């Protein structure tokens, strides 16, 4: 209620309005995004606390109860050498999600730094970085994977390095595009007029605006890394056995007999992949709409 006092007017707005508070309010209204956030949260929790839920390890072979359908003893059944699939599913989740987080983080660090430099300084720096990104985008993804994995060994670490080194250009282009358009804005003109240093301009003024786009990119990149890991496992380039990942667990589906008769081999990993990617994408969309309803992708 506006109250009148003296000749001035004090205006108490009903709540402290912060940018991210607003984003969260709008996101909360998007039911789909909320559901996916909850689903993702549950999946992540299961992956973290799997040792508590299950008394088996991911590599424990018990030939006696091999090839069992889901039962009270093995909640999600066992594979052809009697390893407990419930444990392997969520250890696999740890690896798959872990790789996704690591790749996305690394890719964003490289991409954002190079993108900001290209966008902010423009000119030769911009063309140089863009040409480099073009080179990286032209690389035959497969050939690089096989070679680097063959040279550096097939560990999760190599997989993360390869995936992030090959996919930073996309975030770099997004960040560059944003900074190019933001740089022309009047408030940046003001910054320059006030003599604010380049570094401060980038991180204090430009970065928060670009942050919104980066967050959207992060959710969508999580989904695409999980998918990439699955396709790498299809070609046998995924993580070394016996470490399970959702990608290599679902390869069982390639056998029509198992597809038909031993559904518990491939349904749970398939479901996990499907749900996590779907939720990340819905969240990404929801976030984009919440951050700026008419934001350009």
């Amino acid at each position, binding site marked *: 209620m506006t109250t009148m006092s003296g000749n001035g007017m004090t205006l108490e707005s009903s709540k402290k309005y912060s940018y991210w508070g607003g984003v969260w309010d709008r996101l909360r209204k998007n039911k789909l995004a909320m559901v996916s956030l909850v689903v993702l949260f549950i999946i992540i929790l299961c992956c973290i606390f799997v040792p508590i839920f299950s008394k088996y390890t991911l590599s424990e072979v018990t030939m006696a109860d091999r090839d069992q359908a889901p039962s009270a003893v093995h909640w999600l059944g066992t594979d052809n050498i009697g390893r407990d699939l419930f444990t392997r599913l969520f250890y696999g989740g740890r690896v798959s999600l872990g790789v996704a987080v690591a790749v996305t983080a690394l890719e964003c660090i490289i991409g954002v730094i190079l993108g900001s430099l290209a966008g902010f300084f423009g000119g030769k720096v911009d063309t140089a970085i863009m040409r480099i990104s073009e080179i990286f985008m*032209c690389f035959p993804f497969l*050939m690089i994977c096989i070679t680097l994995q*063959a*040279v550096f060994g097939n560990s999760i670490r190599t997989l993360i390095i390869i995936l992030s080194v090959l996919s930073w250009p996309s975030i770099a282009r997004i960040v560059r595009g944003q900074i190019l358009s933001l740089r022309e804005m009047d408030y940046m003109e003001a910054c320059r007029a006030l003599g604010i240093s380049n570094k401060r301009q980038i991180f204090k003024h430009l970065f928060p605006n670009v942050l919104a786009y980066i967050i959207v990119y992060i959710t969508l990149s999580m*989904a695409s890394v999980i998918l990439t890991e699955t*396709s790498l496992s*299809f070609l046998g380039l995924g993580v070394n056995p016996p470490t399970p990942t959702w990608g290599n667990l679902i390869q069982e589906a390639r056998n029509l007999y198992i597809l038909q008769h031993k559904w518990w081999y491939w349904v749970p990993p398939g479901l996990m992949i*499907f749900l996590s990617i779907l939720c990340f994408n819905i969240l990404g*969309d929801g976030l*984009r709409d919440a951050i700026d309803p008419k934001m350009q992708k």
Partner: protein
Amino acid sequence: MKNYIIRRLLQIIPVFLGILFILFFIIDKAPGSITSNIMDPTMTPELKAALQEKLDPSLPFYVKFFNWLSEAMKGNFGYSFKHYRPVIDVIGDNIGCTFALSLVALIIAMLIGIPCGIISATKQYSLVDNGLTVLSLVGLALPTFFFGLLLLKVLAVDMKLFPIFGLMNPLNAKADFWTKLGDQAYHLVLPAIVLGFAEIASFMRYTRSSMLEVIRSDYIRTARAKGLSEKIVIYRHAFRNAMIPIVTLIGFRLPGLISGAVMTETIFSLPGVGKLSVEAVSTRNYPLLLGINAMLTLATLFGTLVADILYAAVDPRIKYH
């Protein structure tokens, strides 16, 4: 405009050579050789070493690079030992199927994705919008090979509506052109759906977000105030502006037309460039590998150039000098 294109073309050459040079460096590091795959017990080590030297002489990689480049300039992309044929012919065999498959998939994706994007943008947050969004996200969430296998199992193996494998039925190898074409199209239906489904999602989301931005602008209100029908306002005025980012998306998809889709080609036993490049890598067939990658790199670089040209063609405000 013309000298802009020439300038861009000149820029492509150094990038192209740079990529190939790095590629040579990487291939040189790859363990294994052309003859590692030969498991014939009667093949003595000496014979194997001689064959290896013949096919892939152990020169430093930059020497090999210039030899290859000078030959490639003359159009001779080398010989594929495994296929007993020049690299050009081997690529030629596989590119037709990949091009047809990817083109059909791209067309499916655009014909379905773009209208859906427009509909869900004009009815934002309605049931239709949410429904279409989730449906398109399902397309993105299914790994291609998984979706392909299920489709193949249900439609081809169980219901026998579509062929199970291959690009053509060998029995009508000698049939006239049109039956052969029809047969190949019939074989490409399922793979195109699989390949197109994921693309639908990206086209839809691109169109939706760019339409959302355009729909609230002043000139749309002017168009309505001029007494134009809603359809004309949306499809002529709004979409004509929203089309600009989508056109660039198509430009970036061009390389995909010939890079092939490994998983779809493997599941449906199609002779595609995707599978060919995997095979070339695992058998360390360097001449074939370089041939494919040279082609793909050129396609990618041209793709970006075409995207920019399309951008200028569609948006009058853009003028390249």
